[in-house]
């Protein structure tokens, strides 16, 4: 469904994402893990169009979308929830979600492009969109806070709202960037249940950047490891978690007593056991 071909971005001399080729199928949840600064969020930015690729291509259902701006990629079915929340702070939670529902419906009704705003349709569908927004908010247990402006919501609720927006858009490809960071422990299962229910539909492609390894090993069908911008491991979760690159570079388990060089570049031995394909 989604594929990157030698996807690369350079910032000056720094190669943040280095020739990453990877294919993501519908019905599969792929976790993307790696040390801080490995390039995980940058890779997401290249896929969703927040950053322009220096080299390489992104294809969605076989179609090259590398040169499309982010909003048009969203229209083709790429949906993204951000590591740092991106919401309309002065609108209510419900209005935020309703806008996402509206964007989805109008996008579907008018696949050719933006055109104009159909005010009659906005008027007639308004009630249905509002109802759906409420239903989605109930799914992330925010129904009782639907009327509050986003600015008044605590951080964890804003993260849940971000997940609700993605559910409202219902894209073909769901991209989650640390969806549970900043949520209190009793609320994490709410979001994990939603991701699990998405998975059970078997028709959506799900990409998940996540540091909590219990979440990763429970939810993912496959794990991809990025390190220094390169794809260094890719495979079935248990095998990848057991690999030296994950054990040492990421979990810090093996070689725990090994001093981290103060002047080092944090490149552990064995990290390049597998370079790009």
């Amino acid at each position, binding site marked *: 469904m989604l594929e990157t071909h030698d996807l690369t971005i350079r910032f000056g001399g720094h190669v943040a994402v280095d020739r990453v080729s990877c294919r993501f199928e519908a019905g599969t949840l792929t976790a993307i893990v790696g040390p801080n600064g490995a390039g995980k969020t940058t890779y997401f930015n290249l896929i969703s169009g927040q950053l322009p690729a220096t080299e390489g291509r992104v294809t969605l259902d076989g179609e090259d979308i590398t040169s499309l701006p982010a909003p048009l990629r969203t229209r083709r079915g790429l949906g993204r929830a951000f590591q740092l929340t991106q919401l309309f702070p002065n609108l209510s939670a419900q209005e935020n979600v309703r806008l996402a529902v509206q964007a989805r419906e109008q996008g579907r009704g008018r696949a050719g492009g933006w055109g104009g705003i159909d005010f009659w349709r906005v008027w007639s569908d308004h009630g249905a969109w509002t109802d759906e927004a409420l239903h989605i908010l109930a799914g992330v247990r925010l129904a009782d806070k639907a009327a509050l402006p986003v600015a008044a919501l605590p951080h964890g609720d804003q993260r849940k709202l971000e997940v609700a927006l993605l559910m409202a858009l219902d894209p073909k490809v769901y991209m989650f960037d640390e969806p549970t960071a900043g949520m209190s422990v009793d609320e994490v299962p709410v979001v994990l249940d939603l991701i699990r229910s998405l998975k059970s539909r078997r028709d959506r492609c799900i990409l998940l950047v996540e540091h909590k*390894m219990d979440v990763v090993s429970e939810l993912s069908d496959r794990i991809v490891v990025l390190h220094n911008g390169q794809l260094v491991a890719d495979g079935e979760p248990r095998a990848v978690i057991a690999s030296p690159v994950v054990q040492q570079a990421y979990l810090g388990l093996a070689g725990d007593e090994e001093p981290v060089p103060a002047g080092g570049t944090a490149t552990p031995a064995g990290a390049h056991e597998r370079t790009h394909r």
Partner: protein
Amino acid sequence: MSALPTARPDPAAGHLGQRAAAPLLSLRGVHTHIGAYHILHGVDLEVPEGQVTMLLGRNGAGKTTTLRTIMGLWAASSGELAFRGESIRGLGVPDIALRGIAYVPENMGIFTDLSVQENMLLAARGARHAQQLDQARLDWIFGLFPALHKFWLYPAGKLSGGQKQMLAVARAIVEPRSLILIDEPSKGLAPSIVQNLIRAFGELKRQRTTILLVEQNVAMARALGDRVAVMDDGRVVHAGAMADLAADEALQQRLLGLSLGAHA
């Protein structure tokens, strides 16, 4: 990894050891309003010196607001806040910081146009030049967060999300503090770095640094917490020893709606 160098005495730690029994920080009946919203409804909280006090509770319980009220970022509308027995209510943020209280906010609050080094310099009360930073302490910090050494002279805005979080924590520990208020330090950090953080806070604690920690990482809460305060609806609804809460599953279910053991 290099060990935490022995701390120079904190210039603000005037009465160290003189009031062993009195808490370093105490809040009595603190109310805070943010705009039209009444967030804290009479918070009572004691933070004993030289220990880690965990502040737990659901989203919206008032944990972040409590930290911001202590730091003076929100004004308490009533109640008492005392640090070393002296009221700090109504003091400006700089005055509170100068008493040796550091704050790691949830949104990190780093200066993206300044270099990593400049961000660290701004956080150190005594230093005006990089040469004035305590080199042994910096080496300790670089051991915890190697990425900060690698990007020392880069604009902090170029750091990844997790690296920014490392910088936010590093600023709070760049010099000895009397009290560190931390809002979810483990958020967005790779597991190996979370392990480094647990080790670092353990070392700080052994040097009598007092820490008030909001954290959702259960492993971290259990490994570090001496005391625990649980908040709900803008109040502290339970306070006690972390070990007692960790041993009492029924209490965990009632206070937190979950069992800590299930996530350990």
